[in-house]
């Protein structure tokens, strides 16, 4: 055990694409799907829900409370509870992670819309924008930086949390941790951590890039 | 007394905020630093309590170089009021006011008693003492800010645009309150504002600074209005300087004549209006004891027949002053004759009784 190196490159080479379901590339693919679906679903639900919370202020308090409670539950707890509903499937990981993504994204959408300066909103009204057009043309674009900040947090968290799903057999790269633990073998664990962090950094970078492209004005304003 | 001797503030990026400033702030009077943004007025103020340190030159307070004094000790002896009041949101009003006494080690009881006195002094309901800052209006918060600055009875008060964030009506009442307080307390006050009207209203002495941190002119407000040193000061003072200067001339010397019979009064002797046929026409009043010549002129202009009605403090008619009487006084205080009706009077001493010589 003490002679065991942290990383054995030959193992990685042999297991990167061995054709089986436990190949590293297969796990990676799986991981990506299970990490991004919750964020996607989360965003699709959070936008209308966030808008509704802004439109009807009374809705926000209870929504925020539910989100808060959800967010405080450990991922393993939610996986365990959904296990009795959806069994040992991907859904048992994807559904709870969707709730986590929502817990980050709904406040982000609400804060984003709240970050629209009142004069901007007022002048849009004064220029004759109707509500829907005002939302699409003025308020949402101005809210983009805040929403994207939330999206970054949700994405990175989701990528890292998927690995806990390995405990119920659906963890993507997390399965490497179980494998390494059972065989007292460092290499899969290190590979798993490295790929997950890499994936997170990459996704985060892409979202930063997306923000620069979507909101060229926000960078200029920060520089001023 | 506070003196600036060749004080310069230059920032590492090369910006000069204050350039070789020499001036004296007289004891027991209000000195206003006024100028456009970027003129270094706030920087100059903040160098007095060493919130900013000068690059070169010397600032003395009561004859001591402020740089010899440990900043916190120096600051505890100088009241400081800023624009948004800067009240501590987590402390009740009474404890906010008692901040410096606590720092100076007063007992809690003594500090709170003092705080309550001060709340009353600045015209606040003592019932507000137990509230938190967010429960007060902007004007009330600003009064608390003044009370807090006065808590340890410092001889010097620095006020950095204290009233610029409140609406004009509240601002006017805060200004009046400050003048009332000052007539009792006689503090040495340095007051920074960008509002020339505020400067002229409050200042015993007004220092006009120009962009780049240079002193353009320092004078009493009336002198400033009649004899601006150059085009920059003239432009900064704005229009109607002649009219505004009348605010500094007392209406006491206006020659009154007995009220004519066509001035209708009630049984207490208070004016009702000028009789014209069956109707009563508009009239304007001034109190010669407390009002300025500007108020007298205004009263004349408001009267249908151009005659101002002089009243006493109870509003009873004391006499009337026609425009001829006001004109007489205007002539007396007119700036020395100029070759033509030029907008700028020549720079000579045209001082009136209400004017204080620059220190």
């Amino acid at each position: 055990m003490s002679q065991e190196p942290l990383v054995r490159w030959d193992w990685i080479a042999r297991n990167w694409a061995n054709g089986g379901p436990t190949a590293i590339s297969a796990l990676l693919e799986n991981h990506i799907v299970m990490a991004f679906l919750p964020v996607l679903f989360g965003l699709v639900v959070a936008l209308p829900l966030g808008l509704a919370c802004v439109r009807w202020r009374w809705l926000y308090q209870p929504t925020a409370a539910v989100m808060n409670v959800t967010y405080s539950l450990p991922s393993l707890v939610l996986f365990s509870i959904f296990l009795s509903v959806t069994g040992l499937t991907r859904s048992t990981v994807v559904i709870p992670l969707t709730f986590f993504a929502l817990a980050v994204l709904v406040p982000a959408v609400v804060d984003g819309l709240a970050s629209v300066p009142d004069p901007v909103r007022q002048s849009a009204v004064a220029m004759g924008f109707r509500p829907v057009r005002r939302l699409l043309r003025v308020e949402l674009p101005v809210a983009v930086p805040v929403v994207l900040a939330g999206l970054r947090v949700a994405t990175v968290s989701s990528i890292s949390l998927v690995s806990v799903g390995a405990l119920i057999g659906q963890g993507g790269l997390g399965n490497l941790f179980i494998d390494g633990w059972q065989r007292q073998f460092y290499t899969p664990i290190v590979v798993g951590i490295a790929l997950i962090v890499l994936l997170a950094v990459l996704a985060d970078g892409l979202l930063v890039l997306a923000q620069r492209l979507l909101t060229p004005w926000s960078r200029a304003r920060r520089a001023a | 007394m506070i003196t600036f001797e060749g004080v310069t503030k230059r920032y590492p990026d090369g910006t000069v905020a204050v350039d070789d400033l020499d001036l004296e702030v007289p004891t027991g009077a209000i000195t206003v630093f006024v100028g456009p943004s970027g003129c270094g007025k706030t920087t100059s103020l903040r160098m007095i309590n060493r919130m900013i340190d000068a690059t070169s030159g010397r600032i003395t307070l009561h004859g001591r170089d402020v740089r010899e004094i440990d900043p916190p000790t120096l600051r505890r002896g100088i009241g400081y009021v800023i624009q948004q009041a800067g009240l501590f949101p987590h402390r009740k009003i009474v404890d906010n006011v008692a901040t410096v006494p606590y720092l100076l080690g007063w007992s809690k009881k003594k500090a709170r008693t003092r705080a309550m006195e001060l709340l009353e002094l600045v015209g606040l309901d003592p019932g507000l003492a137990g509230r938190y800052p967010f429960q007060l209006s902007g004007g009330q918060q600003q009064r608390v800010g003044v009370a807090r600055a006065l808590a340890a009875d410092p001889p010097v008060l620095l006020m950095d645009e204290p009233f610029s964030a409140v609406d004009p009506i509240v601002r006017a009442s805060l200004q009046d309150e400050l003048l009332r307080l000052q007539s009792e307390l006689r503090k040495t006050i340095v007051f920074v504002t960008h509002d020339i009207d505020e400067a002229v209203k409050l200042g015993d002495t007004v220092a006009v600074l120009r962009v780049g941190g240079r002193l353009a002119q320092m004078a009493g407000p009336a002198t400033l209005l009649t004899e601006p040193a150059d085009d920059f000061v003239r432009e900064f003072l704005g229009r109607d300087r002649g009219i505004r200067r009348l605010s500094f001339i007392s209406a006491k010397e206006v020659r009154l004549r007995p009220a004519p019979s066509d001035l209708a009064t009630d049984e207490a002797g208070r004016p009702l209006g000028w009789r014209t046929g069956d109707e009563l026409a508009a009239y304007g009043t001034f109190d010669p004891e407390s009002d300025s010549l500007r108020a007298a002129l205004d009263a004349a202009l408001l009267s249908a027949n151009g005659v101002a009605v002089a009243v006493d403090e109870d509003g009873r008619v004391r006499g009337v002053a026609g425009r001829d009487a006001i004109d007489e006084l205007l002539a007396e205080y007119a700036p020395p004759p100029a070759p033509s009706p030029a907008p700028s009077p020549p720079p000579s001493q045209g001082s009136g009784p209400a004017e204080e010589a620059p220190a």
Partner: protein
Amino acid sequence: MNFLFGFFGDASRWSGPDGIPVRLLEHLEFSAAAFLIAALVAVPLGMLIGHTGRGALLVVVAANAARALPTLGLLVLVVLLAGVGTVLPVLIPLVVLAIPPILVNTYEGVRGVDADLRDAAYGMGLRGRQVLFRTLTPVALPLILLGLRLAAIQVVSTATVAAFVGLGGLGRFIIDGLATKTYESVIGGAVLVAGLALAVQFAFVLLDRVVVSPGVRQVR
């Protein structure tokens, strides 16, 4: 529901070394130890960085790293490296993952105090340390408490997963249940952990009420 009755109705679950009270106590012990260490490191550090403005980059890096690092991988790696069977190494990932939320929120809290307020505090003659403790800290307290709350929840959560590498605590019910396909144990354990997480959440809400000045709470 049947799962729950099966789990909580079983008298043997309530005593012995694998009983609910013992597991709960274990969970609390580990969590409290990790939380306290993290708080003792991160609160002073966050205040210092927030007050002086030096080291802000460290905060940003820590925040991002903590989110990206997979809990389970970190646990497994640290325990394998330290040698299976020892307990103390498990505390390392628990502490490491609890530090960033405290650090970030304390930093943001102190940093975000209104500039006018700092100015007024210095202007009245408070010294650096007095400004930090009498003005910045009370005003930043809501955010500091938020950071502590997030960290506490993170610790409770990580400690659950740590059952996989041999730590006791409530996670045992879930991990052992999964291994033996005893779902009532999995669900029972999940409910217990959920209850604990909510209790922690609630405790912090109460703490907030007690220690945060009403003048600050209302401003938010």
